[in-house]
């Protein structure tokens, strides 16, 4: 690389521009806030992982012997809440998006830097409320908080956890709001919508859901809290309240929330696949529009979680049909990523390995989603391990792999250091194998009829459960490894240089780690997205 000859004296960047705890806790720099988020959600990930481990250990034997039923119920509830609200939803947007989007659009920062910091503090307040609930007794309603169990029957810390999620919702709203305004208003000269990186497109789509969907879960959980505190009766069947109304409101957000989790991950994959195939994204417009289509259609399908819940059959018919429509743009994306590799010049770097894993596992997760949209089959498999396996294929096989791909891809940009290649490839392999071993047996278990959230189960399900638990331990090793070598690389990693992957995109045109205000001068964009044709093997210079 031409600019690899760096002066020994490190130039000023966002990490070394000032020091001290205050300079971090009061920062409005999107890059530092991204790192604050990274640390917080990593802590939550390990907490959620601990709960998952307890679940898998309990399920090694058919009898409920390791944990009591109450403890087990709290474990899966807290696993779900931690992973969904405190890890997956902020993962790619608040960490990678926060760091990369202003760089990608050539801006100094997000549109509202103070709001960005506020969103992290709000996240922390919400997390503390939830953790307070976890610590002083836990909560056992399932992450879905179905009424009337959550409102009238559970004696656990429902209110503090529900309020915690209510609060953390606002952090997600503020992140989404910031992204939308930034992408609309802060793009560098020449960076038109059809030149925008697909990562921005998909985060934009996810932000739409955050802004329009999150308030609905906020009010729903607030109603649950009010119901518990003041007995307002809205969800209480003894007063004639309809428990299904809660489910409607809950899934109005929580189904689109799945797309909050997966869309930014899809964006990562678009970046990684193009970079390591050295090609423009195949069908760029279709991939970009598919993100928007998913965001919009995602709002129209929520009652497919309720096909046997006692809703009208005609409503079920409508929601089933609409659910198929949302599958199509996802399929379009998968085909386009695959086609991007066609006649490319493919490099087997770690992010690319994760991306392949993502495409494969997301395909399986998506296709099993089609099983669930199909009314006749859904009646049998809903609320069983089939569903558990399906959404883990999408959330873990999809989103977590994308998050890992993104972390590896932008790690050199974030830290200025390269991670070690060999252990990274090993961990990618371990995650892929461990994941499939954990969750594939659960499809079979589900069709056999093992209901989800079961503490004890009939003995004929044991073999598959043991396989699943074994897989989980492999998966755990696959997650511990990156923790170690990422930390290792901070000190011992090779300097990365501004553009270690020789990628295009504005974020690679500034030093690694980037200076506090990202660019020395505002870049002007005169090329199309993923323009690997015109600058094939050399650096792209900033400014024109």
């Amino acid at each position, binding site marked *: 690389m031409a600019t690899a000859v760096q002066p020994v004296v490190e130039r000023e960047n966002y990490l070394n521009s000032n020091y001290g705890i205050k300079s971090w806790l009061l920062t409005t720099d999107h890059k530092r806030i991204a790192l604050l988020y990274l640390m917080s959600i990593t802590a939550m990930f390990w907490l959620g992982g601990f709960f998952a481990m307890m679940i898998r250990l309990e399920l090694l034997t058919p009898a409920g012997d390791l944990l009591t039923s109450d403890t087990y119920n709290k474990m899966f509830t807290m696993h779900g809440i931690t992973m969904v609200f405190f890890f997956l939803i902020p993962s790619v947007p608040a960490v990678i998006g926060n760091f990369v989007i202003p760089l990608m659009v050539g801006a100094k920062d997000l549109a509202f830097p103070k709001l960005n910091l506020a969103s992290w503090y709000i996240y922390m307040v919400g997390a503390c409320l939830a953790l307070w609930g976890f610590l002083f007794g836990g909560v056992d309603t399932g992450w879905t908080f179905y009424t009337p169990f959550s409102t009238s029957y559970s004696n656990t810390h429902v209110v503090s956890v529900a309020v915690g999620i209510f609060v953390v919702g606002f952090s997600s709203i503020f992140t989404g709001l910031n992204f939308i305004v930034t992408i609309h208003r802060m793009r560098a*000269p020449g960076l038109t919508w059809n030149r925008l990186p697909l990562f921005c497109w998909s985060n934009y789509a996810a932000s739409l859901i955050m802004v*329009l969907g999150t308030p609905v879960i906020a009010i729903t959980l607030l109603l649950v809290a009010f119901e518990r505190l003041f007995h307002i009766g809205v969800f209480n069947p003894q007063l004639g309240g309809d428990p299904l109304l809660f489910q409607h409101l809950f899934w109005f957000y929580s189904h689109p929330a799945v797309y909050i989790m997966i869309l930014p991950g899809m964006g990562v994959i678009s970046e990684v696949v193009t970079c390591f195939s050295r090609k423009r994204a195949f069908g760029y417009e279709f991939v970009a529009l598919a993100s928007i289509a998913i965001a919009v259609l995602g709002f129209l399908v929520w009652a497919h979680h309720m096909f046997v819940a*006692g*809703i*009208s*059959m*005609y*409503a079920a018919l*409508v929601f089933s049909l609409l659910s198929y429509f949302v599958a199509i743009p996802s399929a379009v994306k998968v085909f386009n990523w695959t086609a991007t590799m066609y006649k490319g010049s493919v490099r087997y770097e770690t992010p690319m390995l994760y991306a392949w894993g993502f495409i494969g596992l997301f395909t399986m997760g998506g296709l099993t989603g089609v099983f669930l949209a199909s009314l006749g089959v859904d009646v049998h498999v809903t609320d069983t391990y089939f569903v558990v396996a399906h959404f883990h294929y999408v959330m873990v096989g999809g989103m977590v792999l994308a998050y890992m791909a993104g972390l590896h891809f932008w790690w050199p940009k974030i830290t200025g250091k390269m991670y070690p290649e060999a252990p990274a490839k090993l961990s990618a392999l371990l995650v892929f194998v461990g994941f499939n071993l954990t969750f594939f047996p659960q499809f079979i278990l589900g069709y056999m009829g093992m209901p989800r959230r079961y503490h004890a189960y009939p003995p004929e399900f044991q073999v598959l459960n043991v396989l699943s638990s074994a897989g989980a331990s492999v998966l755990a090793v696959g997650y511990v490894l990156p923790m170690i070598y990422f930390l290792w690389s901070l000190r011992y990693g090779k300097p990365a240089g501004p553009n270690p992957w020789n990628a295009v995109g504005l974020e690679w045109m500034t030093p690694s780690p980037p200076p506090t205000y990202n660019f020395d001068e505002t870049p002007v964009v005169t090329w199309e997205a993923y323009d690997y044709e015109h600058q094939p093997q050399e650096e792209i210079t900033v400014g024109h």
Partner: protein
Amino acid sequence: MAQPQQHDDEYTHVVPASLYIGIWATLMVLTLTTVLASFAELGWANIVVALLIATIKGTLVVLFFMHLRYSPKLTIAAVIASVFFLFIMFSLTMTDYISRAWSTYGGH
């Protein structure tokens, strides 16, 4: 910037005070109308009239007091989008409630 089409002078539009007072007067009259209309026994039309008046009032507030009329197209699009999704929430939820009487899962 990518979207230089908004003209500064258009956006800094200072609305004449007389317009604000006119809107205010209309809103006051409409409030009185909606109270009076509710005392007329119109059956199902009561709710229609009430919502119609409320929507006229709301539109006036949004267009003039909130300057949507003088705002960039993007803001207008955003408002329309949110009304659209609100409508989705109402209508798809009601799809279930209205048709439940004749077709609950497990019925005859």
